C-alpha cells in the first residue's frame, strides 16, 4: 500500500497518458452532468464527481461503434474490407466498485465462453484500471446488497481510497505495482488499512436503510425468479409500467446485448455498426419474413430481470448480473428499476 498526495494525482494521470487513452469522470461545463468520458483535458478529471449516468462500460463497449467497413465495386468485383482502426490501450481512471464488477461480468461473458468477442477483446487489450473507493453512496445505490461495493477487492490495477489530503493506493496487478514503483509513491503507514476500513465502514453505514434491508430480499428474489415462482400478475403489473425505451439495458454495467447494422453513409465506405440493444424491445428477436416468436411486454421484462438475477445467468458471470448501481431506477420512465422489481416480488410473498 502506498500514499498518493492529492497534489500528486496529475503525475499519475500523466504517467498513464504516455501509453493510454485516458478515460475518467468529469463534470460537464454547461449541463453540470457527471460523465465518464475520454479526457480531452486530463486536468478536467474529477474523482469526486457523482456516479456517472452512463457506466464506464461505454469505453470498452460503446453505444455506437463501427467494427469494420467495406466497399464493394460491382463493376470490378473488388471488395475492400477491413476491421476499423483500433484505438490505443485505455486507462480507465476513477472506476467505482459497482462498475468494476460490471466490467468483470462483461469480461467473463465476452471473453470466457466458447467464442471470444474479438471486438470487445480489442477494446480491453492492455486496459489499465484505476478504481476509486465509493465513500458516499447515492440515493439509488445498493451495491452493499449485491456484493459489489463500495470497496473494490479485485479487477483493478490500482485502487484509490480518498483519505482526506491523500489517496491510499493499493496495487492489484503487476503493472499497477510497477506504476506505483515508477512514481516513487511513499509506502503507507501501519494504520493505513485501519483508516481505509473505517472510511469504507462509514460509507456502508451511510447507505439508505432500505438498500441495506433489501440484501436478503435480493437473494430471495434470485431464488423465486430461478424457480419460476414469481406470479404472472406481478410481471403484468411491471409490464404495464414499461415504456419500452431500452434505457435500463443501456445504463446497466452488465447488459451486453447488441445490434448490428450495415450502414452506407452519404459518402465513403459502408460501415458495420454495432450498437447497444435491449431484450425488452418487441422487435428484438423478430425474424425476417416470420412472425415475432416472443410474447408480450411482461414476458420481455421478465427476461431482463431473469438475466440480472437468475442462477443460470449468474453462472456465466460467476456472480449475479446486477451490481447494485441503481442506474436502472434513475433512468426508468416507468419507475420499474431493479430495486422496485425486488420490492414487488417481496410484496408478493409478504403482502406489503
Amino acid at each position: 500500500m502506498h500514499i498518493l498526495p492529492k497534489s500528486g494525482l496529475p503525475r499519475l494521470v500523466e504517467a498513464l497518458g504516455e501509453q493510454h487513452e485516458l478515460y475518467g469522470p468529469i463534470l460537464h461545463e454547461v449541463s453540470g452532468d457527471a460523465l465518464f468520458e475520454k479526457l480531452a483535458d486530463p486536468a478536467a478529471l474529477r474523482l469526486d464527481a457523482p456516479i456517472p449516468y452512463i457506466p464506464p462500460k461505454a469505453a470498452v463497449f460503446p453505444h455506437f461503434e463501427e467494427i469494420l467497413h467495406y466497399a464493394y465495386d460491382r463493376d470490378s468485383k473488388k471488395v475492400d474490407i477491413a476491421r476499423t482502426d483500433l484505438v490505443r490501450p485505455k486507462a480507465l481512471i476513477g472506476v467505482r466498485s459497482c462498475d468494476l464488477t460490471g466490467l468483470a461480468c462483461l469480461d467473463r461473458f465476452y471473453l470466457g465462453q466458447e467464442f471470444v468477442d474479438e471486438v470487445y477483446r480489442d477494446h480491453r487489450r492492455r486496459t489499465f484500471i484505476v478504481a476509486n473507493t465509493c465513500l458516499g453512496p447515492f440515493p439509488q445505490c445498493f451495491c452493499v446488497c449485491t456484493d459489489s461495493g463500495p470497496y473494490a477487492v479485485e479487477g483493478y490495477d490500482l485502487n484509490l481510497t480518498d483519505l482526506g489530503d491523500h489517496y491510499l493506493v493499493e496495487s492489484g496487478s503487476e503493472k499497477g505495482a510497477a506504476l506505483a514503483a515508477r512514481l516513487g509513491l511513499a509506502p503507507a503507514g501501519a494504520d493505513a488499512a485501519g483508516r481505509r476500513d473505517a472510511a469504507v465502514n462509514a460509507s456502508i453505514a451511510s447507505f439508505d436503510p432500505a438498500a441495506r434491508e433489501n440484501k436478503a430480499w435480493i437473494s430471495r428474489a434470485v431464488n423465486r425468479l430461478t424457480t419460476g415462482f414469481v406470479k404472472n400478475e406481478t410481471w403484468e403489473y411491471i409490464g404495464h409500467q414499461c415504456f419500452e425505451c431500452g434505457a435500463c439495458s443501456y445504463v446497466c454495467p452488465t447488459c451486453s446485448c447488441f445490434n448490428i447494422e450495415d450502414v452506407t453513409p452519404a459518402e465513403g465506405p459502408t460501415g458495420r455498426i454495432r450498437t447497444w440493444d435491449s431484450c425488452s424491445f418487441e422487435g428484438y428477436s423478430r425474424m425476417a419474413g416470420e412472425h415475432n416468436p416472443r410474447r408480450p411486454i411482461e414476458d420481455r421484462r421478465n427476461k431482463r430481470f431473469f438475466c440480472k438475477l437468475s442462477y443460470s445467468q449468474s453462472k456465466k458471470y460467476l456472480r449475479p448480473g446486477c451490481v447494485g448501481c441503481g442506474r436502472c431506477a434513475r433512468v426508468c420512465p416507468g419507475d420499474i428499476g431493479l430495486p422496485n422489481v425486488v420490492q414487488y416480488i417481496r410484496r408478493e410473498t409478504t403482502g406489503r
Partner: protein
Amino acid sequence: MSNHPGVCNYCGTGCGHLLKVEGGAVRGVFPSPEHPVGKGRLCVRGWHIHELLTNGDRIARPLLREAGRTREVGWDEALASVAGRLADYIGDQIGFWASPRASNEDTYALVRLARAVFRCPNIGLLSDAGHQASARVLLDGAGWPAMTGALADIRPADFILVVGTDLSKQNPIIASEIHFAARGGTHVLVLSSRTTQMARLATTHLRPKPGSLATVLKAMARILIDENRQDADFIARYGRGFDAFRMSLAGFDLAAVEAQTGLSLESLRDATRRLAAARRALAFTAAGVAGPDRDTAALLFDLFLAAGKIGREGCGVNPVTGISNMLGASDMGAVPDMLPGARRLPDEGAAAELGAAWKSGLDARPGRRIDDLLRDEGSGLKALVVVDHDDEINLEADAVRNLDYVVYLGAYANPFAGLAHAVLPTTSYGEGDGTYTSAERRIQLNRRKTEPLAEARPAWRVFADLAAKRGQDWGYRAASEVFADIARTVPSYSAVTYDKLDRNFGGLQWPCDAARPQGTPRLLAEDAGRMTFVPFAAESGRPGLSDDFPMALVAGTSTYYWHQNNIMRKTFIPRREYNALLLLYPQGLVEIHPDDAARLGLRDKRPARIVSAKGSMTVAARVTDDVRPGMAYAPYFIGAMIPGFLKPHAVDIERGEDAAIPVRIEKV
C-alpha cells in the same frame, strides 16, 4: 469534451440530451440527468436519435429537375433557378409549407421570405390542425397560444385530467411524470375511448363512446355549476363571460348523458368534484392529430376556468405538441392568418411594426392553409415551397404532383423530394445552431455539433440567399442574428438572446420579456389579467351512426405513435420496433372488440373490410378489448391505408382522435 448538450428533436416535450461526438461524427446519445424536463430520461425515440443523425440517406447537393431529368448543380445555379422560377408567380399562387421540426430561425426566415419577398400570405405548417384548435382557444381565452401550466407542476398536482391521447406513446416523458405523480398520490383521470397505456397507468379510466368527449366535458361543466362548485371568487376577479358560459349550458340535458357517452353520471360527478376540490389541477391533451377539436378544447378550457384551475400556481390547461418545434413554428408565424408572435390578422399595428423591423413592405393579409389550397381545385395554387416534410402522412401527394413548380428543402432523402423540381440540401439537426420551443413554451438553444454534410446549408441561410437574389439583403450571417430579429419582432421572445440561452441550461420559457427576463414557467392570472370563457357550439357533433354504418371508426395515432415515418425509417431500433407491428399486420389493421369480432365472425390477423359512405378497404382485424364494443380504431399512418381509404376522410381525421367515421366492418 465529447458529449454535447442539446434538446431532443422528436416530440414537443423538450427533453435534454447529450450527444456524443467523436472524430467529427455523432456516436451516441444519452439523457441529461441535470436537465429540468427529462431529468435523465428519454423515450425509445430519443435514445436513438444518433441513429438518425448518422444515417447516410441524405440530400447532399442541390438538384434541379428539368424535362424529367435530374442533375446536381452548384448552389449559385440552384438559387438563381429557384428565385427566378418563383418570381413567375404572383403571391397568391405560391404556398410555403413550413416544418414543425425545423428551428425557429429557419421558420422565421421562411415566413419573412413568404410575406416580405414573394408577398405571399399562404404559409402553413404540416399537420398543425390539432395544435391550432387548442392554441386558438387558449389565445382567445387566456391570451397566449400554448399550454398555460408547467411540466414541473405535474408531480405536486392533486388532480390531473388527461383527455383523449395516449401520452405514453406521443410524449412518453410527460406520461412518465404523470405516472410518477399517480404513484405519489395524485388522482390521474384518463378520458379515452381506448384502453391505452396512459389509461392503464391512471388512477381512474373513463371510457366514453367515440365522438362524445365534448358531451362529457359539457356534463362536467353543468355538474360543476349545478352543484355550485365553481370558483366564484376567482371568476369574479379573473374571469370574463361566465354568465354567457352558464347560459350556453342551460339547455344541456344531463339525463341524456349516460346514453350519449356511455359513462355513468355518478362517475362524472365524482370526476367533477375531484377537480373542484383539488388545490392544484392540470389538464393534458394532445395538440396534434390525436388532439381535441376546437369545441372540445374550448369546453376543457372553460371547465378549468370555472373551477379556478387555470392561471394559478400549480394549475393549467396543457395541450402537448407531438412534434418538437410545432409551437415555435407557430410562434414564428407559420400560420396563414397570423404574423410572428401569434398576432392575428388583420393587425395593422403588427404589420407596420414588422415592416419597420424588416425594412420592407410585407403582405399582411390573412392567407389560406396549404392543405386547403391543395384540396381546393379552384384555389389557383401553382407553386409550393416545402421544408422537411414527412411522407406517408401527406394525404395530398396527387395535388402536389399537379402543381407547376415545387421546391423541397430537407436534410434527408424523402419521397416528397421526388415530386420537386428543385431539391435543396439543408443541415440536419446537429449540424447547425438553432432554437426550438417545446410544448411548455421552453425555448432551448441547440448548438452545432458536427460539420454540415457536403453541400448542406442551414435553411435560414438558403432563404436569406433567395431574398438576396430578389434584391433584399437581410444581413444574416449567423443563426444568432436571425434570432436577434426574432427577439425584436416576437414580443414573448423579446428578452431572449443566444448568450442567455447558453447560460441557462434547459432554456427559458416564454413570455420572456423586459418584465420577465428569466421567462415565465406558468400563466398566473395576477400577472396576465382577465381570462375569457370561450364560446362553443351548442350541439356537439355526433358520429351519425346508422343501420348501414353502425360502428364508429377512429383513425388515430395515439397507441402507434410511430408515424414520423420518414425519420423513423432512418433509424435501426425504432424502425425495427415499428416493423415489429407491421410484421404481424403488414396490410394495416383495424382494432375491434372481441364481442364485435364474434358477432361479425372476424378473427385476429384475418382480413376484414371497413366500409364507409366514401369507400372501403381491406385490412387485418386486430381483436382486442382495448377498444369499446361498437368502436373500431385504425392507426392512420400505415402507407397502404392512406390513398385507398383514409384520404376522403382527411377532414374528419384532422378533427382529432375523437372524430369518428361511421362504418361497417365485414368479414372477407
